[in-house]
């Protein structure tokens, strides 16, 4: 999947650069992958071995989210759309990384980043992402991709003999290495719609994933006073179909066949929100600390489409307070107050409120808020610092 929001194309290329495999210019035979599938060719075995070593490291990695309930939920969605038998060939690793991506290793290890979970809005969108990755696996895309990639680095070695001209050619080749694979991305996209239909999910969700990505990227760029990063399709080092193209063709395909054999598809907004309940606060916090005001503000707005919760208002307060631009402290005071006015207020909102008030005209009120924070969070990690700011 790997969208273009942040460091997209290169990420997809990572699996190529780093999962080298012997090259022959033959097409891989594509057939469904049963649970007990074993690699067939020598090159596929080489690729698997490398990946098994990488997976060994994942087993003890601190970055893997081990929450059994969340893992069971994600796996359940994949199994529902590809079937119990085929999903048994896949191990899912949820990785604590705040960006939007998922990767599939050729041996069946699927990595889903928490930044993706933060951005998806329903179960059908999760099915779109998982189905896309599964399609790469089933169609052995890594293997085909690497064969091609190797051919291109070979060309690079030859070209590098020819001075400046060679250097320029290298850049061109680099670009073409990373732009390779669009057909595969498209194939995976299209295949994932079939999975979604057979799982009973509404196929329109796949297109929505990409419209969200585009809108978030625009919001990030706008706040940074940069040009929109759309330039879809012609991007250097871009291995993926232009995001806008994807949104369009996925939307078109979904419109042509809006429902599966089982009837109208579901979106699954509520089950998704419930499954993520324990994780929203941490993942939002990861996002707020990225120094991406526009993108974060956009995401918070999207997450709040069913109402502003205390967590979301608190996060928005933090976002404005840390940007610290003209009027930001005043705005953050309002958000913290909103967070504290909810039924189950986030305790840290008292801290944020106090700090923001210290930076505006309400110093005494700020000290009171900080003292209140210390009363309800007597073990706070910054207890002694806040005590001092609260006036001792």
């Amino acid at each position, binding site marked *: 999947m790997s969208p273009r929001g942040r*460091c997209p194309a*290169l*990420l997809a*290329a*990572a699996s190529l*650069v*780093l999962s*080298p*495999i*012997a*090259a022959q210019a033959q097409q891989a035979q594509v057939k469904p992958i049963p649970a007990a599938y074993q690699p067939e060719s*020598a*090159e596929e*075995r*080489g*690729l*698997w*071995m*490398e990946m098994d070593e990488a997976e060994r*490291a994942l*087993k*003890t990695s601190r970055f893997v989210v081990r929450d059994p309930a969340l893992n069971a939920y994600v796996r359940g969605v994949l199994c529902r759309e590809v079937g119990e038998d085929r999903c048994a060939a896949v191990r899912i690793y949820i990785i604590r*990384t705040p960006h939007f991506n998922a990767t599939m290793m050729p041996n069946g290890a699927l990595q889903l980043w928490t930044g993706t979970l933060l951005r998806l809005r329903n179960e059908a969108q999760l099915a779109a992402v998982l189905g896309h990755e599964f399609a790469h696996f089933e169609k052995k895309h890594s293997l085909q991709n690497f064969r091609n*990639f*190797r051919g*291109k*680095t*070979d*060309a*690079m*070695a*030859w070209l*590098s*003999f020819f001075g400046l001209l060679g250097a320029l050619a290298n850049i061109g080749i680099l670009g073409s290495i990373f732009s390779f694979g669009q057909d595969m991305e498209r194939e995976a996209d299209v295949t994932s719609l079939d999975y979604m239909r057979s799982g009973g999910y509404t196929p329109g969700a796949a297109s929505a994933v990409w419209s969200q990505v585009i809108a978030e990227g625009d919001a990030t760029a706008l706040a940074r006073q940069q040009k929109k990063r759309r330039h879809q399709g012609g991007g250097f080092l871009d291995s993926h179909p232009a995001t806008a193209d994807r949104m369009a063709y996925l939307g078109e395909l979904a419109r042509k066949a809006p429902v599966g054999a089982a009837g109208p598809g579901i979106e699954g907004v509520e089950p998704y929100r419930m499954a993520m309940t324990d994780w929203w606060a941490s993942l939002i916090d990861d996002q707020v600390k990225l120094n991406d005001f526009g993108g974060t503000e956009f995401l918070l707005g999207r997450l709040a489409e069913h109402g502003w919760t205390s967590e979301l208002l608190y996060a928005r307060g933090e976002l404005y307070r840390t940007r610290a631009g003209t009027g930001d402290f005043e705005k953050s005071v309002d958000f913290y107050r909103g967070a504290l006015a909810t039924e189950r207020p986030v305790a840290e909102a008292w801290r944020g409120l106090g700090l923001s008030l210290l930076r505006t005209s309400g110093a005494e009120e700020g000290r009171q808020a900080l003292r209140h924070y210390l009363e309800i969070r007597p073990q706070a990690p910054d207890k002694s610092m806040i005590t001092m700011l609260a006036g001792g």
Partner: protein
Amino acid sequence: MLRLLVSAFAGMLLLCAPAAHAQFGAEASASKSGFAFPKDGAVKILVFRPDVSVGEQSTGGMNEPNAEWTEKARTLLAAALSSAQTRRANELVMMPELEGDKATLLADYRGLFRAVANSVIAHKLFAGNRLPTKRADFNWTLGDGVSALRDAGGAGAPADYALFVYTYDSYGSAGRKAAQIFGAMFGVGISSGVHMGYAGLVDLKTGELVWINADVKMGGDVREADGADKRIGQLLEDFPARAGAVPAAVPAPATK
């Protein structure tokens, strides 16, 4: 990840760059001053899962890992290691796969060893990047907390030492060798094949690194039994001896 990828890619390009490693000795070892195994008594060495990778280098300098070669090399190197150790009369125990907290602890120490080994290799063994304060002595450690791993090898007496072995081989393909010859005609240095490795020995009671040997131009075809023996011989060159014994059988090359 992006940063890592970029460095990985840069690394790949560096590997095809004109022989940059020609500026220093390809091979070096060091050990804690005066270190030797006790004269008699059993010495039990726990071997961490060797980090072995064998592949083929394409014309572009890219490595293609080969599962058969790697598997074979892993087996051959383990066998060569055992017989080399038997000759030195030390007891060798392979670290089993661990589960749960023990697995995490093991992963932490593998990570720490990697960080220490990288530092020794970068800042001690080779000229150009040496830390001035570390010039005189050989003083590197994983800390005495590593003693928690003494029993990780399973039943029997606690282990006395841990041995870490790393080898990386990428054999030049026909295309790469052709590029090398072609490059030479134009005065461009292209290396064919990468063969490097290091081995380190840690005292499990104190955590001290007592010996390390690194070589970026290793010999011995690890895909063959004889080659694996030769490779282990090179990796264990200058391996500490028993007190009072004659040092390692393999003569030290003149580069040191």
